[in-house]
């Protein structure tokens, strides 16, 4: 259990995103905005992505991060935010899914 009452600056996605921005990188922020069933990460969790595909944080237990990163690179290019939905692999149109059986909705937006 993390018991620090202060931010873990080296691992905090929003702090990292700000640092990337200051370094002149293009950045996208993905946020879990809704969950159903057993979702691995709570609503409000972030994954931050740069144009080179580097990322920090998580929106699931590693199941859908790859797909979110790919979408995020498109979002960085177009500047248009997207809402992604992931469910159990077989029941959705997505190539990836959540093996835990839950469903999540992830909002992906460009920083700036």
């Amino acid at each position, binding site marked *: 259990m993390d018991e620090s009452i202060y*931010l873990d600056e080296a691992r905090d996605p929003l702090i990292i995103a700000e640092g990337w921005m200051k370094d002149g990188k293009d950045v996208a922020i993905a946020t879990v905005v809704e969950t159903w069933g057993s979702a691995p990460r709570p609503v409000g969790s972030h994954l931050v992505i740069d144009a080179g595909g580097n990322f920090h944080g998580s929106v699931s237990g590693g199941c859908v991060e790859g797909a979110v990163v790919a979408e995020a690179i498109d979002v960085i290019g177009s500047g248009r935010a997207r809402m992604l939905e992931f469910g159990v692999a077989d029941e959705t149109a997505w190539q990836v899914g959540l093996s835990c059986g839950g469903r999540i909705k992830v909002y992906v*937006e460009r920083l700036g």
Partner: protein
Amino acid sequence: MDPYVLKTLNEERRARRAAVLVTDLGDGRDRIVREGDRVAGELGAAIASAFRTGNSGSVEAEGRTFFLNAHLPRPRLVVIGAVHISQALAPMARIAGYPVEIIDPRSAFATPERFHGVALHAEWPEDVLKREPLDSYTALAAVTHDPKIDDFALKAALDARCFYVGALGSRKTHAKRVERLLALGASADQIARIHAPIGLDIGAASPAEIAVAVLAQTIHAFRSRGLESKGAVA
């Protein structure tokens, strides 16, 4: 996300101040709301709830869908006094999600053997609180019974608007304490915020039971933040 909004949000989080990031999921516009900011209507009610519970989520208001991401500092509990009650309180509070720090200048009490794995300061509260100031996401329980140790910390907790301030002692003991705190410059409104005798009235008798009563009162104070009138303390 607006870069300035991200910068502001991170500033608030670093300073241990609560903030809610409000994002319009229709057009992507976002803004920061700080605790105590007035926001009208359904959106305002949802934001107030996000501050109280710390839960994030979507809300429909004014015909639009907003996502509210609640960023609350982690609450903590500072205990003045490395006494028998504190030995029970520290592990229970940690399990409940309130990390504990114990301050007691009496080095015979504040020993790692008595408080295994607990953040412990065998120093005067004056010195520790100078380094690690109290804030509104900190609870303070003063349980030494010794005015030389408790009083400064209680005044500091009132000035820092700690979400919970409790002090061990009977009503008679507390009446004398009130006189001393008034002499230290505390206002009557401030002093009225002190929970004394300490703890929810559950008929606690043993030190461990008193610890349960203090923890329950701390949780109640945290979860009802903002329900009492704000700004009573200038």
